[in-house]
């Protein structure tokens, strides 16, 4: 009957919502079952005559679950009890049964302490008169207004006391009017409150300074490091604020153990690659509809999943896309613009990075690569305050490669022409030949005394940086709000006035009913970002240094010089604009209701929409008139819509159980994600001025791409903290993902973790008193990953690619899109971890050590295939087992703490090791020459460089002795080939060191970041292009004078060539294999002064005069100095031809009104 009625009500709702409601209904049912279980144990029903008092206590214990503590001797003087109790609250029950007894009781938490009554004072009539039967109530919260449950409230000088309930409330009766309450809570400074006749108190406890008591945000809740069993690291707004970065991911660089962060380019808003604890999966290639390695962590912003797979937001090329070759920038969209550039770092309260199984297993199939939780700022109770800051400064490219002078360059070019056997072109009549002049204009036509530093011309500019932010917040204990607005402007160091502009707004509302049972939290984030640049990150610094002017007096592109076609004019690319606008809405509503003390039903409703509109214009005025014959002006219009809906009903329950605290969480997740892309390309415009409208194009092609993803799960967590000493935590999740084929959609994941705070053991306290805290912890669990495009389990056909084909006889043909594999499923990552956290000298020194191992098996990858199968790969599970293991050490110290001066330091270092443990059938698989058992998955085999031979060609060691220009590196030496292992490019260790000094109103901090690694050097960039030294592009000055010229030369670079001729064929071969040899690897370790920040807080006297509450002057610098042996380019991006990493220096003022 009931069912029918419900159906009727929900008849018009989509079935999914209906299902979610059923899910909620189920949880509610579950809650109510719990309610009935709990309600009987609150009160006492008992009747008995002359019952021995200890028997009475044990009956009450059974009913209520409250433990009783007493001394047997004290009970001897007690009389048997005669009571008749019907559903009486515990406190009343005890009062009644102990009336007239020589015993008193105190309830602390879920424990009843029975003590002998101090007879004399009570019997004093005077005392009785002073002590009225009054009652004191109150609530204990932290400075953020969060109720503190289980805080102890004791009447000073007595044993009378209680502890706060889940809402932080307490109630004490028979407290003297002038008594003093002592409120204490672990991790917070204790407070004393004089009653002075008042009977209600809102008590705010300040957190004490032990880093161990800093709050950490974990999955569906919070914890403090002291009790947390998971591996969680946090970055707070204070540390973010010091860093003038546009993308908050860059603020994480070096700060979090186990998290490697690297920017792909120095362009504002460029993509940032993240990886937590190493590469888990074998294949990091594209092809599954994803453009990045899918070892990206799961990102959650205010409870809503954000930026799935950290995918780029651009659909077409933009300046942020690093180029791999100097002039022919055809690189695919393997990097681009970061989705995180749409979040203003100033709006972020904290970022928590979850790494191990205990922290991530509750995310099930999405947690395999770690989870990053981002929490935006919320309002705080108190007077309404207005915070405003303005920062301004500039960025400048660092480590721009120094290129050859004209003299060096022309010498190298002449050398090349002579090695080709074409020396005759250098003097008349050869030099007068128009064909030669066209082919070698730099040698024969351009002014040989002219010199332009193209690096300075294009990259040497200063890019302005401006950041302004205002926030209004405040509220009462029950309702708080915050409203912020921000504006960030970041320029490009290129000429052309390119910039990234961002406007952001954040609104938060928090309300709790006065009884604290209903809590409503709403946060909404909206931002608009416009990144306006060019379609290419062209590396103009490789232009010949004697290249004539590229612009004429009127700013028009120059294409002809003395009748010779210039061909490359980088300013042309600057006229091809790429305009990307992103609109980001992220909203989450969380409603929580306390059904009973300790039992909360809540649900989060999250919605996010990320919309990108890209417009790339290629006007005909930007093309060489020569090319205009066959290239038309065109315009690209791209639209991406990403929408996520998430509903997460939860039920949480906590109570004291025995001497411990039990926390239970059960919940469900429903998530729906859709991603729609549309691209339109228009050509045949009658004028460049009309490019902005697709309607003006005479020919249009369109592509659409649509992905749908649905996910549903149940999860649970049980945590038990026994007496602050023994901790255990269990999590589990069963989830299903639409990315998998029928029958393979569901997976189970779980973790178990345990900890022992040994420093709480009395014997330990006695033996090693200087150790203020010590915890051993361990966890083991499973996580998965479903980072794969949907529909790979069936053979899909779609319209023939509109940009590379045309309709045939008026019909758009169909083409197959993928190989199908009906049987792939989750990759499973088994993570185990052991750790120790230590505090010394009252936690002035806190150290942490984690040792972890994760083994990812049943690898879900794009299984590589030879193209004879039709495709490059197929979605499949590999039997490969990849192990990532490592050690992470953190150290936080307060070195000096005096009233005026403090010096604190924090340090982290991570060691990582990646290893392929097993791969059955490797020898006969397509991976036979790619992966090696026992080696890192990033290990490659290549040629062994052995210098320059007597003909000026690179040579390589042969496996069987001797040298060759054409090594057979595919086969290892054991297999009879010339292949050797190339250097391992995994970082060996990395980390950071932060020091903060404050003296009176001054604050200074610096942060050093380091990374020990081997990586590709600049020579990889030069030899990857297929354009070998000698061609018409400039080379780094470091190479000048080191080219082979004649037999007997001890040269480090092969003879330059411009063409393949029978005489220089050996050089050509040698060049072709150079990129595949160990010669393009070198040490890429570095120490970087990542951040230097200084602030001065204006003195109070000044502030009072100016009627401001606070005013701070700040100066900060990012990427100030790099110490490295890396020869050219940046050791972080390791790409000679991408936009160099920027150094940013800003100064600012912030006010609080």
């Amino acid at each position: 009957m009931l069912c029918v009625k419900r159906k009727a009500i929900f008849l018009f709702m989509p079935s999914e919502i209906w299902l979610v409601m059923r899910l909620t209904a189920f949880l509610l049912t579950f809650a109510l079952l719990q309610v009935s279980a709990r309600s009987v144990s609150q009160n006492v029903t008992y009747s008995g005559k002359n019952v021995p008092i200890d028997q009475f206590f044990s009956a009450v214990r059974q009913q209520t679950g409250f433990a009783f503590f007493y001394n047997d001797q004290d009970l001897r003087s007690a009389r048997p009890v005669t009571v008749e109790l019907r559903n009486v609250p515990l406190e009343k029950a005890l009062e009644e049964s102990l009336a007239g007894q020589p015993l008193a009781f105190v309830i602390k938490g879920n424990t009843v302490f029975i003590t002998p009554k101090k007879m004399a004072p009570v019997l004093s009539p005077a005392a009785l008169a002073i002590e009225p039967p009054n009652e004191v109530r109150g609530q204990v919260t932290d400075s953020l207004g969060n109720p503190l449950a289980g805080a102890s409230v004791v009447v000073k000088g007595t044993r009378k006391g209680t502890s706060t309930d889940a809402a932080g409330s307490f109630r004490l009766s028979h407290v003297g009017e002038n008594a003093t309450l002592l409120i204490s809570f672990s991790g917070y400074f204790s407070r004393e409150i004089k009653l002075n006749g008042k009977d209600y108190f809102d008590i705010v406890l300040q957190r004490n300074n032990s880093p161990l008591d800093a709050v950490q945000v974990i999955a569906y809740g919070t914890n403090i490091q002291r009790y947390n069993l998971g591996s969680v690291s946090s970055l707070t707004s204070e540390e973010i604020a010091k860093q003038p970065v546009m993308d908050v991911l860059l603020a994480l660089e070096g700060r979090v153990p186990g998290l490697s962060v690297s920017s792909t380019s120095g362009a504002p808003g460029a993509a940032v690659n993240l990886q937590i604890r190493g590469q888990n999966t074998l294949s990091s290639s594209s092809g599954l509809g994803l453009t990045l390695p899918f070892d990206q962590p799961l990102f959650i912003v205010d409870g809503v999943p954000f930026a799935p797979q950290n995918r780029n937001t651009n659909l077409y090329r933009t300046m942020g896309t690093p180029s791999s070759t100097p002039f022919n920038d055809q690189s695919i969209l393997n990097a681009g613009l970061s989705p995180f550039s749409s979040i203003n770092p100033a709006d972020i309260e904290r970022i928590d990075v979850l790494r191990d199984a205990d922290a991530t297993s509750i995310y099930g199939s999405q947690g395999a690569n770690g989870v990053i939780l981002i929490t935006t700022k919320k309002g705080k109770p108190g007077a309404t305050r207005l915070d405003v800051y303005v920062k301004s400064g500039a960025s400048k490219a660092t480590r721009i490669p120094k290129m050859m002078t004209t003299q060096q360059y022309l010498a190298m070019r002449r050398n090349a022409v002579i090695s080709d056997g074409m020396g005759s072109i250098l003097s008349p009549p050869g030099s007068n030949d128009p064909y030669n002049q066209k082919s070698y204009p730099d040698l024969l036509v351009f002014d040989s005394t002219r010199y332009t530093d193209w690096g300075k011309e294009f990259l040497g500019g200063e890019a302005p940086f401006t950041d302004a932010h205002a926030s209004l917040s405040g509220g009462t204990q029950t309702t708080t709000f915050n409203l912020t607005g921000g504006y960030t402007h970041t320029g490009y160091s290129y000429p052309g006035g390119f910039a990234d502009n961002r406007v952001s707004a954040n609104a938060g509302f928090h309300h709790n009913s006065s009884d604290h049972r209903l809590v409503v939290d709403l946060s909404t984030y909206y931002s608009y970002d416009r990144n306006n640049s060019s379609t290419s990150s062209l590396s103009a610094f490789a232009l010949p240094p004697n290249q004539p002017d590229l612009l004429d007096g009127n700013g028009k592109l120059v294409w002809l010089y003395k009748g010779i076609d210039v061909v490359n004019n980088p300013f042309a690319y600057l006229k091809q604009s790429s305009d990307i606008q992103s609109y980001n809405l992220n909203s989450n509503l969380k409603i929580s209701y306390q059904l009973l003390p300790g039992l909360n039903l809540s649900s989060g409703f999250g919605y996010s929409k990320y919309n990108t509109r890209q417009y790339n214009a290629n006007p005909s005025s930007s093309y060489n008139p020569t090319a205009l014959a066959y290239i038309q002006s065109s315009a690209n219009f791209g639209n991406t819509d990403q929408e996520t809906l998430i509903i997460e009903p939860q039920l949480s329950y906590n109570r004291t159980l025995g001497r411990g605290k039990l926390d239970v969480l059960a919940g469900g997740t429903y998530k729906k994600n859709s991603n729609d892309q549309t691209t339109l390309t228009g050509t045949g415009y009658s004028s460049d001025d009309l490019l902005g409208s697709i309607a003006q194009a005479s020919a249009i092609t369109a592509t659409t791409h649509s992905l749908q993803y649905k996910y549903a799960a149940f999860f649970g967590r049980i945590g038990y903290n026994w007496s602050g000493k023994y901790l255990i935590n269990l999590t589990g999740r069963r989830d299903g993902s639409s990315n998998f084929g029928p029958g393979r959609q569901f997976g189970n994941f779980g973790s178990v973790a345990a900890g022992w705070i040994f420093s709480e053991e009395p014997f330990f306290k006695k033996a090693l008193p200087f150790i203020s805290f010590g915890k051993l912890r361990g966890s083991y669990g499973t996580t998965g990953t479903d980072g794969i495009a949907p529909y790979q389990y069936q053979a899909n056909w779609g319209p023939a690619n509109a940009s590379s084909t045309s309709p045939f006889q008026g019909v758009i043909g169909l083409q197959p899109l993928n190989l199908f594999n009906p049987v792939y499923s989750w990759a499973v990552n088994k993570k185990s971890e052991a750790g120790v956290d230590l505090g010394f000298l009252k936690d002035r020194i806190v150290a942490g050590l984690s040792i972890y191992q994760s083994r990812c098996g049943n690898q879900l990858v794009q299984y590589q295939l030879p193209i004879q199968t039709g495709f490059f790969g197929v979605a499949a599970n590999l039997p490969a087992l990849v192990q990532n293991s490592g050690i992470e050490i953190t150290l936080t110290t307060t070195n000096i703490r005096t009233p005026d001066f403090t010096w604190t330091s924090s340090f982290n270092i991570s060691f990582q090791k990646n290893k392929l443990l097993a791969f059955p059938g490797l020898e006969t698989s397509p991976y036979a020459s790619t992966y090696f058992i026992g080696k890192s998955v990033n290990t490659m085999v290549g040629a062994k460089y052995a210098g320059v031979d007597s003909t000026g060609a690179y040579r390589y060691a042969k496996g069987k002795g001797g040298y060759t220009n054409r090594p057979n590196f595919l086969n290892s030496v054991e297999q009879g080939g010339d292949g050797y292992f190339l250097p391992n490019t995994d970082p060996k260790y990395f980390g950071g060191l932060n020091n903060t000094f404050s003296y009176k109103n001054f604050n200074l901090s610096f942060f050093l970041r380091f990374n020990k690694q081997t990586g590709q050097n600049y020579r990889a960039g030069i030899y990857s292009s297929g354009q070998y030294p000698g061609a018409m592009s400039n080379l780094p000055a470091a190479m000048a004078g080191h080219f082979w010229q004649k037999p007997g030369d001890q040269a480090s670079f092969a003879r330059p060539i411009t063409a393949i001729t029978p005489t220089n064929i050996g050089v050509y071969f040698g060049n072709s294999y150079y990129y595949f040899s160990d010669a393009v690897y070198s040490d890429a370790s570095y120490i970087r002064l990542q951040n230097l920040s200084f602030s001065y807080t204006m003195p109070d006297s000044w502030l009072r005069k100016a009627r401001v509450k606070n005013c701070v002057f700040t100066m900060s610098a990012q990427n100030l100095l790099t110490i490295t042996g890396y020869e050219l380019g940046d050791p972080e991006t390791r790409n000679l031809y991408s936009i160099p990493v920027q150094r940013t220096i800003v100064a600012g003022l912030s006010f609080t009104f």
Partner: protein
Amino acid sequence: MKNKQSTTNLYLAWTLALVLPAFSCKKLIEIPANAPGNIVTSQVFTDSGSAVAAVTGIYSGFMGSFGSFDFPSGAITLYTGLSGDELGYTGTGQSSQAFFQNQLLPTTQNISDLWQGAYGSSRLYQINACIEGLSANKTLSASLKNQLTGEVKTARAFFYFNLVNLFGPVPLVVSTDYQINNTLPRSDTGLVYQQIVADLTDAEKQLSAPYPSAGRERPNLYTALALHARVNLYRQRWAEAEAAASKVIDAGVYHLETDVANVFFAGSAEAIWQLPPGGGVFNPNMVTTEGYLFVPDMIYTQVPPYVISDHLYAAFGTGDERLTNWINTSTDGVHTYHYPAKYKRSYSNYSSPAEDYMVLRLGEQYLVRAEARAEQNNIAGALDDVNTIRERAGLADTAAATQADMLGILMRERQLELSCEWGHRWYDLKRTGTISTVLGTEKPGWKPSAAYYPIPLNQIKLNPRLTQNEGYTQ
């Protein structure tokens, strides 16, 4: 007692928590059966419209995009022209130089692109998928199924014919099952030819004489026969080659264009298979890839990137209309350059009549039959056919006394008539065993092993059972 009940409730709740997801989760994660705009194989071949679209999708992919050249669109002409003795190169691009100098490496990107251009998803894979999909379907009409199957089998034969002639033995992929295909080794050329013949034989049974659609853009019976005639010539099945070529010549459908200038125009009377240039919005003027490749478009310079080699140029006799019509000249003021101009429409000059991309034409059939007749010692018959071609080129009739003379004349005639067209010259030098004699004198640094292109290194890496051709490091 109450406690007991609450425990029971608790168990019940947990049981529900574990059982419930099984009912509801499946529905929660339901998504539509296909992504928007996509269909699965079984749907493709149930509807005649989509089945035709699946087959014509192969032809859409033939011509590639603007300016790109690929296995079926210009790459074979260009690469074999450079490797052989038809083309020279004026630029500095190292990949073109590598072809010209016969110094290819297994790492050369163009080689791996060429391989992919034959085996890729819209090429042999799609052909195989169509054959499988058509044969599995029971709702399409038999005539449509036959027509479409015959078309794709002809296309498959065409791909394999070119593959064996470029690379020698190649993996013979005839299904879509990647679990079989990913480890296929290279098959003997004999086996590949067997498959080609089988496909063409089937196609001849399945195809009918009329073209299935407007123009000569989709294969008909004679397309299969014409290719079959060529394949038989390569296999030295002279009588069969003659018979097949005769069927095409005598069909009454095709006629030699009287003016050689008109041979490559759209609607050419001698076209047997002729595809419209593709390329979508970037190619609104319908320029063939070869027109784009060879005709110099530069405003400031008239240097064409690829020039007719001196050997080829010298081979033309005076008065040969093919020299004046199929080869054009440009100059930069000092030098004179000759470039291939069978296709004249370029991106800057598309005023000439529309051109379609010629895959098979009648002119070749005369030469196939002539050679087959000559090999069967029918000198008179051979002369008939050769002179038909010569007359059309404005040349006087030739005569031959011996079979060897006749074959010599034929080779020269093939060199001229089929110059810079689909690799004919390169293939002819190889099948007649004269490549090292000819190129050894014409090209310094010639090695016999350069007659076959290397197997791409990245493919050997992915399929360790692939072997490398002789003379290459890997």
